[in-house]
């Protein structure tokens, strides 16, 4: 205990943790929340019922947890994957049958992705039926809609990466749907595929979208989404 007390008084400790210890007053308690990046996801004062499980079913946090899981497993999968033909399919097979725990990792990534789509959808239902999309939270609802779309796009772009029959035809059908957009449809399809047929360029484009561009946007928007929850008056 003495060592701990001494430790909390050192300059190093105090430069990392800004709150002065020991905590005695209510102000000190609120400063713990206020001074911490992770804890201040909640406002200083939270109604007890707002953090009850039956109030939000923790759906937003579950979605976020799944997203973190997807980043971790996805980065690990990247170490054994090359976005090229025919390597992509062989790498996927190797991950499944040769690499230690590869199939476990791949399945984690796959199931987390499926689950994330479901939890994001349920989260939106919960928000809608609680009326939490009404002012002043209407803009956060809009951010949420964009987050849903990016989640679906991440799912879709990830679908091509194994480069098997299922991927190939799903992307054929998907990009042909894009083609039906008036005037710009043909061009958008060409840019997405990097050609007029699915090929090497398509795989690389989908890989870059899946691993860099879309995650970057979703991380930025998630940060904005969380920040707005606080600024718009906490959970509802």
């Amino acid at each position, binding site marked *: 205990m003495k060592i701990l007390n001494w430790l909390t008084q050192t300059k190093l400790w105090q430069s990392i943790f800004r709150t002065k210890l020991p905590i005695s007053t209510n102000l000190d308690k609120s400063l713990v929340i206020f001074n911490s990046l992770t804890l201040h996801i909640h406002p200083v004062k939270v109604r007890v019922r707002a953090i009850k499980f039956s109030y939000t079913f923790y759906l937003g946090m579950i979605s976020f947890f799944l997203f973190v899981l997807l980043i971790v497993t996805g980065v690990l999968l990247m170490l054994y994957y090359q976005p090229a033909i025919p390597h992509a399919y062989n790498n996927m097979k190797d991950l499944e049958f040769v690499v230690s725990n590869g199939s476990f990792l791949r399945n984690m990534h796959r199931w987390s992705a499926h689950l994330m789509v479901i939890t994001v959808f349920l989260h939106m239902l919960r928000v809608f039926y609680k009326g939490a999309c009404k002012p002043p939270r209407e803009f956060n609802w809009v951010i949420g809609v964009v987050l849903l779309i990016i989640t679906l796009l991440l799912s879709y772009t990830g679908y091509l990466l194994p480069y098997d029959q299922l991927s190939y*035809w799903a992307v*054929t*059908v998907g*990009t*042909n*749907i894009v083609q039906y957009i008036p005037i710009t449809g043909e*061009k958008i399809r*060409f*840019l997405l595929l*990097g*050609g*007029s*047929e699915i*090929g*090497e*360029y398509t795989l690389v484009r989908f890989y870059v979208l899946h691993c860099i561009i879309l995650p970057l946007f979703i991380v930025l928007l998630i940060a904005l989404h969380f920040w707005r929850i606080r600024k718009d008056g906490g959970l509802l």
Partner: protein
Amino acid sequence: MEMKKSNPENSNEKNKISRRVFLTSMGNTATGIVLLGSFGVTLEYLSPNVLLEIPKIFKVGPVNSIQPNSVIYEPEQRTFVVREEQGYFYALSAVCTHLGCTAKWNDSGVAGNPDAVISCPCHGSLFNKLGEVIQGPAIRGLDKYRVQLEEDKLVINTAEKVSEDEMILKV
């Protein structure tokens, strides 16, 4: 500057653009042009100029070796090359006009319909041997390509789509 601005009696002075406004708008315009230009250049960069795709023109033959009433399927170009009994040739795209899956040729027809020799596995569109729609969701018939005779081989150009009147090559 301030002095001149606060003198409304001089109408010439009133309509004059101040140095600050002029420079700001020049700067904003320049920035805008650069941003717009870089956007355009990026968009240009994104669309590839050289594609290592399958050649659009391919040959089938020699003509004599193609059996009457038979179909040759070219998987690379996704094309059916058909010879009818009378020595008529035509080429049909195997790409379903609904959402781009590869349709399959089945001589005996599908789903109890002997005419429906071409069927798409993705969403169940059916076509007859001339590529006309028998059953949706496809609303447009299969594309027909121009077939030409060069020496004793058929030359098919998948870049050149033709109408029903022009599709048949008589040899």
